[in-house]
């Protein structure tokens, strides 16, 4: 098991290096615009631009630049500096991460708490009005784009903007430590919007799994033992049907921690997603590189967690 984990971590690091190479090519080799020009600002003299090129090492061969880039990241955790503000990318990320984590954790709790019971009940009550209503709603939520849902939510409930102004609107996020109550209130709408689609996906996933599991031979065995149906469903059915949900959940958390760009943008939550969005609109390549790398890292770590965790959930899985 330990060997397996070590192997997976090493593979993960290799993956990160590959992602670095990809982002390097994408943001430092392919763009036609000279970063030094962006950094220098308007009406900069060629002398200043040349000075910046030398400072950033832009006049050196690409492989030297890449090697330096890798060294900075893996040895010094230095992701570079914003071309506009000159702030370090790492400090920007550190600054923005709490908002993204707040958004992710709340949304995950919400969609798990809603999606899983709805999925189970729909499967048990298959074909009934309840099932159809739940699955119909799920389909509608699945089909609605997140930014559209977010705009509707703001239109209906946001302070100053909404028909029923009961919740803080965009750009109201404050840190948890600064004002816990405001933190909570400001995140209610983003949480709901972000979890709506996910709850729909999870309920459909779990419903499908559970229906399949309930046809398994071991469910028949559980019934033949004389177990009450409620225990057959929960102890034998749900236990087996829920394992694939963990996989998806792990990967979803990993992906969201890399920034929920749409939700953060519409609600103006200053998290990783919005940081990324702003950086892209300004061609602030070091930030985009940094956030891309961060997102990749979260997904790789989530993958390792899911694979290792699976051995604990499913006894048939053993790594050697």
């Amino acid at each position: 098991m330990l060997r397996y984990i070590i192997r997976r971590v090493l593979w993960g690091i290799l993956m990160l290096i590959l992602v670095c190479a990809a982002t390097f090519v994408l943001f430092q080799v392919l763009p036609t615009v000279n970063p030094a020009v962006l950094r220098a600002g308007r009406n900069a003299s060629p002398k200043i631009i040349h000075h910046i090129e030398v400072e950033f090492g832009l006049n050196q061969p690409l492989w030297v630049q890449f090697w330096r880039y890798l060294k900075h990241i893996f040895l010094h955790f230095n992701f570079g500096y914003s071309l506009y503000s000159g702030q370090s990318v790492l400090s920007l990320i550190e600054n923005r991460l709490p908002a993204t984590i707040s958004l992710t954790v709340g949304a995950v709790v919400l969609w798990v708490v809603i999606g899983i019971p709805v999925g189970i009940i729909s499967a048990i009550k298959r074909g009934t009005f309840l099932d159809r209503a739940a699955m119909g709603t799920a389909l509608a939520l699945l089909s609605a784009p997140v930014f559209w849902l977010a705009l509707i939510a703001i239109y209906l409930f946001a302070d100053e903007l909404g028909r029923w102004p009961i919740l803080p609107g965009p750009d109201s996020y404050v840190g948890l430590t600064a004002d816990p109550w405001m933190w909570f209130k400001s995140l209610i709408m983003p949480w709901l919007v972000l979890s709506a689609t996910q709850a729909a996906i999870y309920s459909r996933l779990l419903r499908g799994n559970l229906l399949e599991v309930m046809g398994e031979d071991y469910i028949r065995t559980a019934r033949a033992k004389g177990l009450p149906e409620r225990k057959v469903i929960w102890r034998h059915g749900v236990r087996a049907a829920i394992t694939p949900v963990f996989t998806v959940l792990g990967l979803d958390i990993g992906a969201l921690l890399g920034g929920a760009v749409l939700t953060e943008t519409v609600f103006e939550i200053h998290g990783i997603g919005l940081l990324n969005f702003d950086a892209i609109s300004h061609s602030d390549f070091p930030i985009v590189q940094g956030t891309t790398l961060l997102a990749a890292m979260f997904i790789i770590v989530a993958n390792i967690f899911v694979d290792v965790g699976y051995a604990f959930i499913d006894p048939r899985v053993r790594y050697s």
Partner: protein
Amino acid sequence: MSAPLLEVQDLRVSFSTDDGVVHAVDGISYSVREGQTLGIVGESGSGKSVSSLTTLGLTRSPNTKIEGRMLFGGKDLVQMSDHDLRQVRGNEIAMIFQDPLSSLHPFYRVGKQLTEAILIHRHIGKSAARARALELLEMVGIPDPKGRIDAYPHEFSGGMRQRAMIAMALANEPKLLIADEPTTALDVTVQAQILALLDDLQRRLGMAIVIITHDLGVVAEISDEISVMYAGRIVEHASTREIFAAPQHPYTWGLLRSIPRLDSPRGEELIPISGRPPSLINRPSGCHFHPRCPYAQETHKRIDPKLEPVPGARSHEVACLLAPAVRASIWQGLASGRTPEQLLPLAAASNPAVAAVPAPAAPGEAE
């Protein structure tokens, strides 16, 4: 002779599906006495598993229609409420299934699944249940029960899994054990071990067994009586000795001739029953077996035979339109190595009116 433990009377089970009504069990009756073993034999889709699952109410659903009576200790299992039936399941009547790997929950340890079976029906403590589970594993011949009780099903071999399933079924000392193809998924040597185990446990515990199989060889050793099912009906019923000595139904002949025998000459081919089991939605007219029967006559397409006693034999019943004397001579011919084609005139001669009409050779559905 003691009163029957389970008496099934005219049981009918049908399922409504999108394609039509499936008549899985079509009016079967049988009974099992305490300590006795009944073998129910038939191919896939003959309704044998459905009838046994119905005993425990496991076929109950809004799309299922169950008629007839299943008297167990004087109570009708068909009419019993779900709640009452649950008290019977795994307690007075237990069941084991074909594939022990898929029948055991992959995520729970064997010991946990055993103690669960015990604790459903017995109000004892967890440690007492665990002690009982160890005792059961020991009883079914699992070596080193203490070391194996906390293993997962996938860590057991196929034979061990079926032993564990049997242990689970016997947890509450049932009066009746229903074994649905208990050896089909196992190696031949393991099959013999499991059958010997069932036989031994029956003797020690005095329970009745209904064993369901497609393999007459399996029931030959262990059954007292055999019912042969075809298309949802019992087409022949007799003691095991009678079935092998003087089988009456052409379908039974087919089953017997498709068993490999050690004493048959090397290189001799096994003879399969031609055609496929009929659809249970649009069943053949007349005798349901006529499309596949080498001896079928024109009248057999119209007349539906009833299960009737065989003249001169004790408790031997058959549903066949051939005359008893004709059946006897055909079986004699088959037993002496002649082919159905050679024996066909015997069947035709029994019915002079239609003797000229060739029997339908090609399998298929009647209109």
